[in-house]
């Protein structure tokens, strides 16, 4: 089955001295300690006054600012607005892209008809369409939903389509030899085989959806975390800016982790699922 390359798979480390053994948690220890070291250095730099904390803030100041925000009702509104933009746009994209991707994968005619539009949409950076989208949908929540939707719909569509096309002929042959109906072939062979591809698309799509929220809010908005970051940046409240970025970072990691977890449940049969 054609599967995207799993980057985390370690190729045999034969070029490193073979006597070198690692202990099981080496990865976490080294990664974790580097992270802590960087945070420590950052804090030290800020406190030493070598660089004006106004420019770089510091871990403690970011944390303090964060705590402060948690009590600010505006912050929760921003969170709600950005969250809604993400969920609506992404949800709509999933609801449209998966069925459409399946249809395009199954029908060559449909693929020929729609591929110019899909390819064009893929080639246009959504960012360039922002002025147009704002002309159409204003600066409220809906313009962001459109941007998020456009960003997520293409990867999900393209990957779902690839998944259908990758259905292995040998499995279809088995189904046909048991005189399976076309519907049965679709539900028992094509659909399960497409699942890994759909998840790849969902993950790419989630990243682009999140990007859409940020980009849309930076361009023109009245609320949202991106809006907060921009406003904080304008007033040199660097700690708030960092906190806002942190929120997006955490959201990104959480969404991917959730999708990974979901994928594990659906794909217990795969030997190499992370």
């Amino acid at each position, binding site marked *: 089955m054609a599967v995207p390359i799993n980057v985390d798979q370690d190729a045999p480390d034969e070029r490193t001295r073979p006597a070198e053994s690692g202990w099981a948690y080496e990865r976490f220890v080294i990664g974790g300690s580097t992270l802590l070291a960087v945070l420590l250095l950052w804090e030290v730099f800020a406190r030493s006054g070598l660089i004006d904390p106004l420019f770089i803030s510091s871990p403690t100041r970011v944390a303090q600012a964060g705590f402060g925000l948690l009590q600010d009702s505006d912050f929760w509104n921003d969170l709600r607005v950005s969250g809604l933009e993400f969920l609506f746009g992404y949800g709509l994209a999933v609801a449209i892209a998966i069925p459409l991707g399946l249809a395009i994968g199954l029908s060559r005619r449909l693929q020929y008809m729609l591929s110019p539009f899909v390819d064009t949409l893929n080639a246009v950076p959504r960012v360039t369409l922002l002025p147009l989208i704002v002309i159409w949908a204003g600066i409220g929540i809906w313009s962001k939903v459109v941007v998020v939707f456009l960003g997520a719909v293409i990867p999900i569509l393209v990957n779902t389509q690839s998944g259908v096309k990758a259905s292995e002929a040998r499995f279809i042959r088995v189904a046909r030899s048991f005189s399976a109906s076309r519907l049965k072939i679709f539900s028992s062979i094509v659909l399960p085989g497409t699942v890994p591809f759909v998840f790849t698309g969902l993950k790419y799509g989630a990243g682009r959806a999140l*990007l859409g929220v940020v980009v849309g809010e930076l361009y023109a908005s009245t609320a949202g975390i991106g809006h907060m970051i921009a406003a904080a940046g304008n007033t040199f409240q660097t700690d708030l800016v960092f906190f806002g970025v942190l929120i997006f970072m955490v959201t990104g990691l959480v969404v991917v982790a959730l999708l990974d977890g979901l994928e594990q449940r659906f794909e217990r049969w795969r030997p190499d699922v992370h």
Partner: protein
Amino acid sequence: MSTKQSFYLRHERAILGTVMVLMALLVWEGLERGWWADALHPILGESAERLQLERIFISSPTLVASAAFRMFFVTGEIWRDIAWSSLGYGLGLALAIAIGIPLGLAAGWYRRFSYAIDPFLSALNATPQVAFLPLIVVWVGTGLGARVLIIVLLAVLPIAINARAAVRITDPRLIKVAASFGAGDFRLFRTIILPSAVPFLLAGLRLAIGRGMIGVVVGEIYGSAAGIGAMISQAGSRFQTDKVFVGVLTIVAAGMILIEIVQHIERRVEAWHPPVQV
């Protein structure tokens, strides 16, 4: 099977695609000029008005084409913007390559180094990098520096991650062969790892090109006087929708040209290496 039928079947893809595109363009043009509104007026009455849209909302193929002609060949105003954007883009992409490739290769080669920087790469990858833009502006103000930095931030990840993957996935059998000939680390790297990494690097470059484009536009929209992104933003705020489209198409064309170039190189490399799926 008649010759007409077999002709159609052989070129079905191009024919269907072209027909759909032409139909879409016609519908678009008609929406702006009111063809459909006029045609359906006798049937739908007043509500047929809805089938004509203001040009500030949608423009039309002919308006966009004439604006393009003007901007490219009459006033030439767009060339300055292209040059401006290209400068930032070129610098940003070059820097991303210069940082990303060594970083990725090192991470692929030295396992421990990879463990060390992995949290940062993952964090950066999970974050919409554009969110860093206000921070970048705080540091270096608006201007060339900010634009270059945001492009670097966006483009460096696909390059580094692919470079790392390329080294990790090098066929261990080839390494065994080289080692059995007594090849030292450096020679091993130069003659085995690097050549086999090239297709991955090119695939990463293709991704970086697209993401860099986003950086160019975002950087300019946020604070620049010139450049395609700035032009789009200004035209948008003045409701000059035809110019906006021209800008969008220019960026798309530029991206396609660059990617085509990379794909051309990829095809020549592919002669000995099967295509890579990323």
